[in-house]
C-alpha cells in the first residue's frame, strides 16, 4: 500500500456516499452520434510458411476475416469472443500495431489501414491503446513520469518544462497521487498500474481508445474501479472506445453496443438491450448462458445452459460455410455449404446465421436461402433471384424481418 492510501485511510475511511457517488450506471447509447471510426471489411491475415529449405507461403491464418462496424463519437462498442476469435488482433490492426491485409479503417476522412508509417505519427495521437497486462506492458526500468510523459515528448505536445506538470495532471485525472511521478511501476498494485497505462493513453488526448481486456488481469474488487474510471474519462473527454473483452458482464456495463466475434468474423452485433435479452445467434446465446451466475445460489444447482461441444477450431483451417457449425446445435446441411451473410434484422441488430432467431424460436428453414439464391439444403437454386448483399458498417433504415421474411421500412 502506498503512503497516499494510508493517509486517506487513516483519516476517516471511505464513506458509503463517496463510493456510491463513484458507482456508475451503464453507459447509454446515443443513436444520433456521428461515427468517429468506421471499420469496413477489415482483414488481418498472417502467412503460414512451409518448413522446406525455401519457406514458401502455404496458407493464411485468417485471424480477422472481414469485419465491419462503426464506433460513434464519444460512444463505445464492445468486441467480445473467446480466445483465438481475433478480437485482440482486430484491435491491433485498428491501432496499426499490425498493418491490416485488407479493408479500411476510416478516421476523420483518412484510411488508417493504408496510411504510410510516416503519415501515421500524427494519427497515432488520435487513436491510443490500453493493454491487458498492467505488469508486462509497463517498462520496469522507467519511472511513471517518464512512461506517461513519453508520448508528450515524442509528439512535442507541450513545452519541455511543462511536461512534468502535465504528467502530474494526468496522474491526478486517473486517481493516482501526482507526487508519485518518480516511482517505478513495481511500487504500484495491479489496479494502480492499469491506471498508469490509462494515463499514458490519455496523454495525447485521443479521440479513440482501443482497450484490449483492460480489466481482466485485475482482482474483481478492482475491476469496477477501473471500469468506472474509464466511464468518467469517456464522459469528460468525449473519447470513443473499442472495448475488447471476453467478459460479457463487464462489456454490458460499459458498451451500449456489442459485437460478438467467432473465428475471425462478427456473428452478431446489436445494441445492449437486444443483444443481452434477445440474442439471435446460437453462439451469442451459448456465450450468455455459459457464464456461472451468482443468483443461482438462491435456487441451488447449476443453471440451465446451452452446452457447446468441443473447442474453437483452428483459424488456419476453419470449417467451410459457417465457421460456427462444428459446435452449433442448429447446424444443418446448408451451414457447411454456404457462409451465412450478415443480415440486419432490426433497427440496430445484425446477425450472421442461416437459422437466426430468438432462443427456442429458431426457424425450421434457413431464413437466408432465398436471399442467397439457394435451396434449403444450400444447393444453388436456378429459379431463385439472389439479392445483392453488401455488409456496410453501421445500420440502415431498412431491415429484414425474420418472422415475415420480408424487408421492412418503418
Amino acid at each position: 500500500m502506498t503512503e497516499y492510501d494510508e493517509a486517506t485511510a487513516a483519516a476517516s475511511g471511505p464513506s458509503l456516499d463517496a463510493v456510491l457517488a463513484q458507482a456508475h450506471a451503464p453507459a447509454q447509447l446515443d443513436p444520433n452520434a456521428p461515427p468517429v471510426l468506421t471499420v469496413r471489411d477489415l482483414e488481418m491475415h498472417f502467412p503460414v510458411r512451409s518448413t522446406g529449405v525455401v519457406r514458401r507461403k502455404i496458407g493464411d491464418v485468417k485471424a480477422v476475416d472481414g469485419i465491419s462496424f462503426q464506433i460513434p463519437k464519444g460512444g463505445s462498442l464492445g468486441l467480445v469472443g473467446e480466445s483465438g476469435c481475433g478480437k485482440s488482433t482486430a484491435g491491433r490492426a485498428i491501432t496499426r500495431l499490425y498493418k491490416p491485409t485488407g479493408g479500411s479503417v476510416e478516421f476523420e476522412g483518412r484510411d488508417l489501414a493504408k496510411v504510410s508509417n510516416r503519415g501515421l505519427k500524427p494519427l497515432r495521437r488520435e487513436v491510443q491503446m490500453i493493454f491487458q497486462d498492467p505488469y508486462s506492458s509497463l517498462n520496469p526500468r522507467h519511472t511513471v513520469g517518464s512512461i506517461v510523459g513519453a508520448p508528450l515528448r515524442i509528439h512535442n505536445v507541450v513545452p519541455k518544462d511543462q511536461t512534468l506538470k502535465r504528467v502530474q495532471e494526468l496522474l491526478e485525472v486517473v486517481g493516482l497521487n501526482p507526487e508519485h511521478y518518480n516511482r517505478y511501476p513495481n511500487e504500484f498494485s495491479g489496479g494502480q498500474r492499469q491506471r498508469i497505462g490509462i494515463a499514458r493513453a490519455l496523454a495525447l488526448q485521443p479521440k479513440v481508445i482501443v482497450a484490449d481486456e483492460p480489466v481482466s488481469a485485475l482482482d474483481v474488487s478492482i475491476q469496477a474501479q477501473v471500469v468506472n474510471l474509464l466511464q468518467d474519462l469517456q464522459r469528460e473527454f468525449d473519447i470513443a472506445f473499442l472495448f475488447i473483452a471476453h467478459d460479457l458482464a463487464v462489456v454490458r456495463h460499459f458498451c451500449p453496443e456489442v459485437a460478438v466475434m467467432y473465428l475471425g468474423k462478427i456473428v452478431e452485433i446489436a445494441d445492449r438491450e437486444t443483444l443481452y435479452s434477445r440474442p439471435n445467434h446460437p453462439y451469442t446465446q451459448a456465450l450468455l448462458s455459459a457464464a456461472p451466475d451468482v443468483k443461482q445460489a438462491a435456487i441451488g444447482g447449476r443453471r440451465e445452459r446451452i452446452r457447446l461441444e468441443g473447442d474453437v477450431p483452428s483459424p488456419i483451417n476453419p470449417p467451410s460455410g459457417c465457421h460456427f457449425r462444428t459446435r452449433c446445435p442448429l447446424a444443418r446441411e446448408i451451414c457447411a455449404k454456404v457462409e451465412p451473410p450478415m443480415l440486419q434484422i432490426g433497427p440496430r441488430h445484425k446477425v450472421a446465421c442461416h437459422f437466426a432467431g430468438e432462443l427456442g424460436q429458431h426457424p425450421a428453414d434457413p431464413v437466408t436461402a432465398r436471399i442467397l439464391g439457394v435451396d434449403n439444403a444450400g444447393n444453388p437454386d436456378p429459379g431463385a433471384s439472389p439479392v445483392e448483399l453488401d455488409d456496410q458498417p453501421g445500420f440502415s433504415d431498412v431491415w429484414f424481418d425474420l418472422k415475415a421474411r420480408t424487408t421492412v421500412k418503418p
Partner: protein
Amino acid sequence: MWAYAARRVVIGILLLLALSLVTFILFFASPADQAKLACGKQCTQAQIAVTEKALGYDKPVYEQWAGFAKGVVAGRDFPIDQAQREAAPETVTHCAAPCLGFSKYYGETVNSLIKDYAPISISLAVVAVVLWLFFGVLLGIAAAVTKGSILDRGIVGLTLLVYAFPTFFIGVFFLKYVVVKWGLLDYPYYTPIAEGGVWGWLTNLWLPSLTLALVFLASYVRMTRAFVLESLGEDYIRTAKAKGLNSRAVLFKHGLRAALTPLVTMTGIDFGTLLGGAIITESVFAYPGLGLLTVQSSQAWDLPTVVGIVLIAGSFVVLMNIIVDIAYAFIDPRVRLG
C-alpha cells in the same frame, strides 16, 4: 525436420563464404606487403614479383577470393600462375578439394597444416568439455538443491575465485608446482592415440584440459544453478510433487530435463569455439594446436593459413550450432518441426 536442418546447412555455408571474404578484405586492407613477407627478408624486387605471381597476389582481391572459393570446391594447384607451373613442374603442389590454400611460410598446403595441428585442439577441447560439463553440472545441481546453505555459497564462491585467475596463471601454476616442484604428474607432451594409446593420450591431456575447463567451470556452475532453481519453481514441479513423487524423481525426472536444455546451447557454442584452438592454453603448454598456429601465422602475416584457420574455426562453430538446433528438437517436443 530434415528440411529444417538442410536450410540451416545452406545458411551456414553462405555464412562461411561471407566470413572468408571478410577475412580476405581485412588482410588486404593491412599495410603489410604480402608477397614481400611470403618471400622472406632478403628478397630482390624480381623475386618478390615472382612470389607475387606464384601466390596470385598480383590479381585483384575479388579474383583471388574467387580462386580461393574455387579451390575449396574443386581443389587447386600451386603456384597459381600457369607459366610458373609449366616452367618448374617439380615444384607444383596439388591441393585437393576442399583446398584452403598454400602457405609459402610453412611451405605446405593449409590443409596439411590443419591436419597436423587440429587433432591437438580437438583433443584438448573434448577432454575439457567433458571435465567442465561433469563438474559444472554436478556442482551446479548441488548448489541449487542446497540453495542458501554453506555448501551452495562455498561452491559458487570457490568457482568464482578460480574464474578470477587468468588462464596463463593457472597453467603456469600447474606446470611449476604440480609437475615440477611436487612431481605429482609427468610433464605433459601431446601424444596421439596412435602412439600412446588412449591412456597415454589422456594422461598427457589432463593438465592442459583442466586449465581450459576451469575457465568455463564457474559460468557453468552458476548457469546450472540458476536453471535448476528456475525450473524447480515451475508449475509442473508442483504438479509432480502433488502426484506424490519423491524428491529425487521430482528433481531428476522433472526438474533437470528442462533445466539442462539451455546448457546444451551454451555447451555447443563454447565447444565449437574451442575446436578452433585455445590460444593461451596451447601457448602455455606449448601444445601445437590450432591456437598456436593462429598466433604464429598471424605474427608472420601468413594470409593463406590465417584465412584457412578462420574458416575451419568458423565451420566448427556453424556446425555445432546446427547440431545444437537439431538436438533441441529431440529434447523439446515443442520445437519439433514438420
